[in-house]
Every structure is written in C-alpha cells, then in structure tokens.
C-alpha cells in the first residue's frame, strides 16, 4: 500500500467543554473538514482538508474553535523547509503543476515599508482637512501638451477622454467567474456610491450590471470573453490586459466546472467549457500591433473612452511603458509581483516579476526623461495595502492605484489563498450557489464604501500634514519621501534620498 506523504497545514482545535454539537461548523465548511460522530456524540475534524479560512471559527456560536498551524515538524533545515519538502511530495504524487491563489507571500522586501513620508513643521504650515478644502479627485487619461484659448478666452484644445475618480483608487480587474456574482455586485455598487471605478476583468459584463456602466472599466484580454460592441461601449473606459503581476507571461484558465449558466451567458461561451485565455494576444506581437488593438477599440467606441493597457511589472517595464504611451494608450496600468490572482502556477507567482514600487519609480522617471509623462496616466497595482501605500505611490509618480486583495479582504476574504479550488466559504471566489449567497451585497458594498472613505480621510490627513491641499500637487513629488534601510542602488532607482539627508 502506498503511503500518503502529505501532512496537514492546519490543526483544528475544538474546546470540548464549549462545543454543543450544533453542527454549524459542519454546515459552513465547504471543504468538509467537520463531521458529526453520532456514536460518540462528538464533532470530528479532518485537519488535512482545512485551509484556515476562519469561517467555522467565526460562526461557531460558543467560540469553541481555534485553527492553528499544524505542529508536526520536519527535522530543522534552513534549505529544505517543510514547504519545500511538501511540494516535492505533492508533485511526485500527482505530476501536476502547483497551482496557487492570491499574491506572492514570500518575504521579499516591501519597499512601501522602507519609505517614510514628510510633514510640515513651522514653515509651509500643515492643513487640517477637517476644516479646509482638500482635493483628492483625479482625472485619469491622456493630457494635452498645452492648452490653447481663442480670443474670447474659450478653450479650443480638444481634451482627450478622461475618467474622473473622487479618490485615486479603483477596484482592480477580477472577472465574473474568478469571483462570484455577489462579489461583483458589491464592487460595482461601492464604486458607484464612491464615484470611482471597478473593473470587469476578462469575463465579460453581466447584463444586470450594465446599469453601473459609468463606474465600470471593461476589460479585453486575449480570450476576448464577452467582448462585443455593446460591451465595449458599456463602461467608462476600456482596459487591454496584456499581463498580470501574479503571473507575468502566463495566460488565464477558468476551468469548465466554474462555467455555470450565468457565467456562460456573461462570457458568451458554452456551459462547462474551459475559458482559456492564451498567454499572448495573437494579434499583438509588437508595439505597432498594440497600437492597432488600441485604435480598434477607440474606433468602435467613438474615441469617447480612455483605453488602458495593463502589464505586469517586469524587468524592462520602463521601456515597455514608453512604447505603450507611444502606441496611443491613455492609461498604463502596471501590476507588481505581489498582485493577487484567482489562480496562478505557484512557481510563476513566487519567482516572476518585480516589486511595483521599483517599477513605478523607473517608469515615471523614464516617461519624464522622454518628455511624454503627460501623454499617459499611470495607474499601479500589486499589493497596495493601506492609505500610506497610496500616498507613497502618488509621491513616486502614480496617478491612481488599483486595489484587488484589499477590496476582497473588506468583503470577508481571509487570505487562505485557496481561490482556485472554487470552494470559498466566504462566497467570494466561488460559483457554488450555496456559497455565493453567503455574501450579502447589501452589507458588503457598504464595507467597501467604509474602507475607501476611511482611506480617503487618511490620505487627506497625511497630505494635509505636508502642507498640500490637492493630491495632484503630490504626484511625483519624491522630495516628500525618504528611504530607510535601503542601499544606494535602491535609493537611486526609487529616486529618493535616505532619511536624515
């Protein structure tokens, strides 16, 4: 008989004094960890199947459950640690590519945490946002080189299409399919109330959500799912997805089991069929070809909507960004290597791409050097965790940020990194009706509104402290940043001084 080499990651600890055998944990767990043993009148747990999503912990009426890291240890080895060993066992057992979800969890440097912000003292007094006007609204889109007025003082320069965001934050692309209908509805309604935008991802736009169009960015990826003329004109902007921070150079693949009736209608593909997005767009092999796609989208949308191009942050991102600007895009989106995903090969997620902070600094610098920074807005993504990260991103040169993981956390994600299984107990990354209905959009959209409103106020506090009353005045103002514990090379790339300088 062959032995199963894999050991559990988590241990379910049940306080038998508190447990009342109500079986809520059993009903709540889609991984079927908990079961009731009628013979002994006790609840049992299969540690092996637990993903540590906290659903049972939080719903247990008596607080009887705790999930812990599984205490079993391999012999201590700094090289062959438990994870490295377990991965070998799994691949030897199944012969499969290791699949994972959410962003890169490895202990790489988080540059946001190595940068400190400035504040005014004595001179250039700080501004109190509670009593003074403070502008956090931004316009995203290509800006003209100059403004021209006629003799009557009227503007004669044609302004390229822009989208207006009340806060420099958008919800990043997460397709219907990778996340649930209720999760999408929460994002769409929150974006509408906040005066920002959410992004359809590459899964098309459900008929019921066309009404949120003013606050929607529709995405076009290599699979072209759900893309037609009506879809392309349904949103405020169109985004071409070239790459994603979690899996640069890799396509997407929604397994057929997640393509139910509603997802099928939204993607316009048969029920149960795999939705495969090839790694490249096969009509784009060059910057000139990218221009062709950008302008095909502009042609079909009457030149009324900004066209975004999203790439993963990779080694030569600055040169690519310059090409994207010159190809006619209105907005470039750069997604760092910590960006989330519904599913990605683990080795790719953990080893490919570069930190967004460095990519952002080098792209902004390159576009300025070439004198084309005004021609394109720069939106960044790839693990923006809080309002301070956003302020730092804007000081490094970003026009706005996309948040994905943070938005999902706001609606109940517990970062168990198991999205790909489709069994999300919080009703987010699943298409199973029983699980989807656990997520109540009426409640969850308000949590998103709360989060962004709180961040907006924090942004105002922080920039007010610098004596700045408009987010536009902070953009690319790297003097407001100082590095801490960084090498000269890192400081050079970030274009900032060290603290104390």
């Amino acid at each position, binding site marked *: 008989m062959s032995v199963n080499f894999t050991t559990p990651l988590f241990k379910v600890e049940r306080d038998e004094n508190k447990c009342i055998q109500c079986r809520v944990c059993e009903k709540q767990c889609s991984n079927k960890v908990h079961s009731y043993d009628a013979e002994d009148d006790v609840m049992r747990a299969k540690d092996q199947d637990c993903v540590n999503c906290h659903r049972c912990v939080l719903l247990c009426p008596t607080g009887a459950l705790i999930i812990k890291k599984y205490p079993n240890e391999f012999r201590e080895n700094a090289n062959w640690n438990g994870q490295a060993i377990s991965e070998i066992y*799994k*691949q030897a057992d*199944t012969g*499969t*590519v*290791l*699949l994972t979800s959410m962003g890169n969890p490895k202990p790489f440097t988080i540059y946001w945490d190595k940068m400190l912000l400035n504040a005014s003292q004595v001179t250039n007094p700080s501004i109190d946002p509670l009593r003074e006007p403070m502008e956090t609204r931004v316009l995203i889109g290509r800006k003209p080189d100059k403004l021209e007025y006629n003799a009557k003082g009227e503007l004669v320069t044609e302004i390229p299409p822009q989208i207006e965001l009340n806060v420099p934050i958008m919800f990043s692309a997460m397709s219907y399919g990778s996340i649930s209908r209720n999760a999408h509805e929460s994002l769409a309604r929150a974006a509408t109330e906040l005066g920002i935008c959410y992004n359809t991802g590459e899964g098309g736009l459900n008929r019921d959500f066309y009404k949120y169009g003013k606050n929607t960015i529709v995405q076009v990826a*290599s*699979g*072209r799912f759900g*893309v*037609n*003329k009506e879809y*392309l004109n349904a949103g405020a902007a169109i985004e071409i997805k070239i790459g994603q921070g979690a899996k640069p150079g890799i396509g997407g*693949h929604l*397994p*057929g089991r997640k393509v139910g009736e509603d997802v*099928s209608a939204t993607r*316009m*593909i*048969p029920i*149960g*069929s*795999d939705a*495969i997005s*090839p790694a490249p767009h*096969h*009509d784009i092999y060059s910057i000139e070809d990218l221009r*062709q796609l950008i*302008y*095909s989208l502009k*042609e*079909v949308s009457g030149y009324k909507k900004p066209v975004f191009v999203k790439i993963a942050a990779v080694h030569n991102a600055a040169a690519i960004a310059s090409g994207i600007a010159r190809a006619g895009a209105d907005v470039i989106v750069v997604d760092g290597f910590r960006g989330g995903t519904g*599913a990605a*090969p683990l080795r790719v997620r953990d080893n490919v791409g570069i930190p967004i902070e460095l990519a952002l600094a080098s792209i902004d610098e390159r576009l300025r050097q070439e004198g084309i920074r005004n021609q394109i807005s720069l939106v960044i993504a790839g693990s923006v965790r809080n309002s301070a990260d956003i302020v730092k991103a804007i000081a490094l040169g970003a026009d706005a940020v996309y948040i994905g993981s943070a938005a999902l956390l706001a609606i109940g994600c517990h970062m168990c990194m198991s999205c*790909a*299984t489709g069994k999300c107990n919080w009703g987010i990354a699943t298409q199973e009706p029983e699980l989807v209905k656990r997520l109540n959009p009426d409640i969850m959209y308000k949590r998103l509104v709360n989060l962004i409103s709180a961040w907006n106020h924090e942004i105002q506090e922080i920039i007010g402290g610098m004596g700045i009353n408009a987010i536009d005045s902070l953009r690319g103002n790297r003097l407001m940043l100082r590095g801490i514990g960084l090498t000269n090379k890192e400081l050079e790339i970030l274009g900032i001084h060290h603290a104390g300088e």
Partner: protein
Amino acid sequence: MKIINAQDIYYRQLNELVDEAVKTDKDITLDCVFGQRYIGRGLPEGVKIKINGFPGNDMAAYMDGAELEIFGNGQDAVGNTMNYGRIIIHGNCGDTTGYAMRGGEIYVEGNVGYRVGIHMKEYKEARPVIVIGAKAGDFLGEYMAGGALIVLGLGLKKGEDLTGRYCGTGIHGGAIFINGKQDPYKYAKEAAQVELTDTDKTLLQKHITAFGKYFKKDVRQINPENFYKYAPLSNNPYSKMYSK
C-alpha cells in the same frame, strides 16, 4: 447605392464617412481602398459594403451583422472578435482571420495565413464559420473553442497540403473540416479525427453551395462525404495539468 472614393483618405475619416453614409443608405461601395484599417468595425445588420481594393488590418472588427464583400485580398485579423455578419473575400486573406469571432461567416476564395480561426467561439445559436477555398497556414484553429473551419482545397497542385502544421493546437470546442485526408503529424495532441455526422454533412453542403454561389464556381464535384473532421478530445483539455 452610395459610392465613396477612399483614395488618400485616412482610416478614421473613411470610417466616419461610412458611419455617416449608412444613416441614409445601407448599400455602400468603397472604391480605391488601400490599406485603411477597421473598415466595417462594429457595423450592424442590414449594412452592405462592397470594397474594391485592399482593405487594411482588423477589417470587420467587432462587426455586428453587416455584410462585406471584398474584391481584393484581405489583410491580417479580418473579422477580429466579430459578433455576427458575413465577409466574402475574392482573393486571399492574411493571418489570424476570424480571431475570436463569435458568430457570422467568412468566405475566402483563395488561401489564408497563420493562426486562422484562433479562439473562435460559439454561444447558443451563434456558431461562426470560416470557409477557405484553397489552403491554410500553420496553427489553423488554434485554441478553437467553437464554430467550424472548412478547408476546400480547390485549385491545389496534386499532393499539396491543405493545411500547415500544428492544426488545432489547444482546440477545446468546434470542429475543423478538411476536404481530404491529412498527414496525422499535422494535428495537435488536443485534436482527433472523428466521424462525420449527418448534421456535419448538412452544414458542409450548405457552406459549399454558398461558396459556389458567392464566387460563381462549380462546386458540384465537392462531396461532403469526402471531408475529414477533426474535433477536440475534450472541452477541458488542461484540467489534469494543475494541482487541486
């Protein structure tokens, strides 16, 4: 019928002229077309355009029901992400013809380039069809997810192949119909030869007849029974590749 002379007109202006023209006249002829892109993009049902010359890339992108007839060659990405409609090309056509098309028909009198029918889809009653009069380049039907690709092999020399290599790589829906047996090495591991059904034969006969009509060719010698059908082994080809 409205006639527009496209000579020396940039594509943006040309497409605007077409938009303007279809408001009053659904029948349009474009003369002296020479490389202008995106002709017919997004145009709806009822519009008919005759194109004399050589339209540029991405002709009929996102087209939504219009009918285009081209007296010349098509370039790359004809019918890109087309939703519905018909394209008739009296000539050859370039790479990625019918990229991600979801519905409608494309008839090409001569040859087509690489990656034709890539990621063609189907959804409910929308089942796109591309009929190729002569032969196709490599990667025909790559990532094909629906619809039908039909290669007639007309006018080829004896022994000349109807398709290039890697036919049907990544195919997970739809079918490829070839008028004659092909060397199996040309077919990707995701595709296999399967028997023709009666529905297939009806479909083939319908499009062969239409081909003959559009190009004024005698197609009576083309027998649907002689076609070889290649279809995906699975509509979930990569499900076993990844860990759970």
